[in-house]
């Protein structure tokens, strides 16, 4: 895309602000909302994948070795993963830390 959505002028919007390209919610950076960031402790993690399943933004990816980590472009810092993790492997830390 030549122009990002943030640069669109009012003239460039479709009539009724209709969105004509399906699936473009993936361009939306929900990571901007975050004030807390999930940090994984691999010493405790049992690779059960519960965090992956519960993340409401599908922001958690599985690595080739079977660990899990958040894509910070999308992770909005809700803390659900940390809440659901049965082994308390995820800690929410302040963004500044």
């Amino acid at each position: 895309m030549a122009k990002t959505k943030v640069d669109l002028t009012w003239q460039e919007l479709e009539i009724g602000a209709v969105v004509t390209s399906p699936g473009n919610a993936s361009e939306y950076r929900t990571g901007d909302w975050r004030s807390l960031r999930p940090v994984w402790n691999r010493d405790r993690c049992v690779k059960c994948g519960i965090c992956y399943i519960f993340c409401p933004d599908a922001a958690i990816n599985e690595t080739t070795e079977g660990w899990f980590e958040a894509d910070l472009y999308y992770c909005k810092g809700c803390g659900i993963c940390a809440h659901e993790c049965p082994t308390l492997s995820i800690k929410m830390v302040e963004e500044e830390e």
Partner: protein
Amino acid sequence: MGNRIGLEVSLSAAEAVKMANVDCIAAYPITPQTHIVEHLSELVNDGHLDAEFIPVESEHSAMSVCAGVSAAGARVFTCTSSQGLALMNEIVHIVASMRLPIVTILANRSLSGPLSIWNDHTDVMSIRDCGWIQVFANNGQEVFDHVLFGFKVAENENVMLPLMIHIDGFILTHVIEPVEFWEKDQVEKYLPVFKPVHSLHPDKPVTMGAFGMPFIFSEAKVAQDEPLIQSKSVITAAWKELGDITGRYYKPVETYRNDDAETLFITQGSYGDTVSLVVDELREEGKSVGLVMDRLWRPFPFNEFRDAVKNADNLIIIDRAISYGGQGGPLAIELRSVMYGEKNQPAITNFICGLAGRDMTIKDFKNIYQRAMEKVKGITLEEDYEYYGVRGK
């Protein structure tokens, strides 16, 4: 032209909707709009109109159905009144931002409370800023013509906005008037088949009514306001074409004996017809009086209005709604602002009258004229506005 028929205005409005060949009507009955939807349901039931009639459970649903139908690319009509409009309010605003060319008749009735079913413009003014094109029709013929006009303008590819026709409840809806019907071929020529710019279809999926984050919301609002402002040229062209077919030429601001008048009454809706008689009587008494009727309410015709009142010293603005705690009726507030900074600013007096169907006769308007003259001569205190005929005031 077709036949001239004596018919209740509500029924002729429904017949005009039939002639517009709508695909769907979604409506909930409410006084004084009832006869319009009742007649439409009969037309559909009896096979005179090939359309879906969706009897919804509320006005909120009525406008929601209209949104869906219009988004699917079909022509849709609804009508309501007062509390019904209040209940559909949420969707009224949304369909404007979605640019869905829904046509609605609002049978003007006072907003409760106290509970009332009678006519004034408090419901009109409650949605002044909803982003629809809004026109007043002043008699049965105008209602008929403006249904066809409404779809033509709303569905114009450069407009694509919902359009509301204001008609006075009871004063028009329940009155039998002669109405000249159009011929079928005239309608077909005037009103082309609706071609939506975007529509919901699996072959070309789109998202309508998506949310707008702060970074895009203002742009989306300008993209909504600009076409409303620009729609005026489409509106005047549609009136011109209508005039060429019917011989009835409508204007954004209608005038009567205004050119040389020192004092002008300013009205909206069916009061214009009454006040035109007042003007004649006052003229016979040697008074220099005229009348200016605002037909197009949104987009507001600034230049036409200023031009219509440019020779007048006094404007008597008749309001049929209240802006509680404000500077008068909504029309007066608007027009004071329109005239602000003009070279020859007229003295503006404002009367709020005829609320909830209280009769306003020729004598009442003459009283208002008298009172306005006292005010501009400084005989009585100049206030921003006055409630006419209220006991104890």
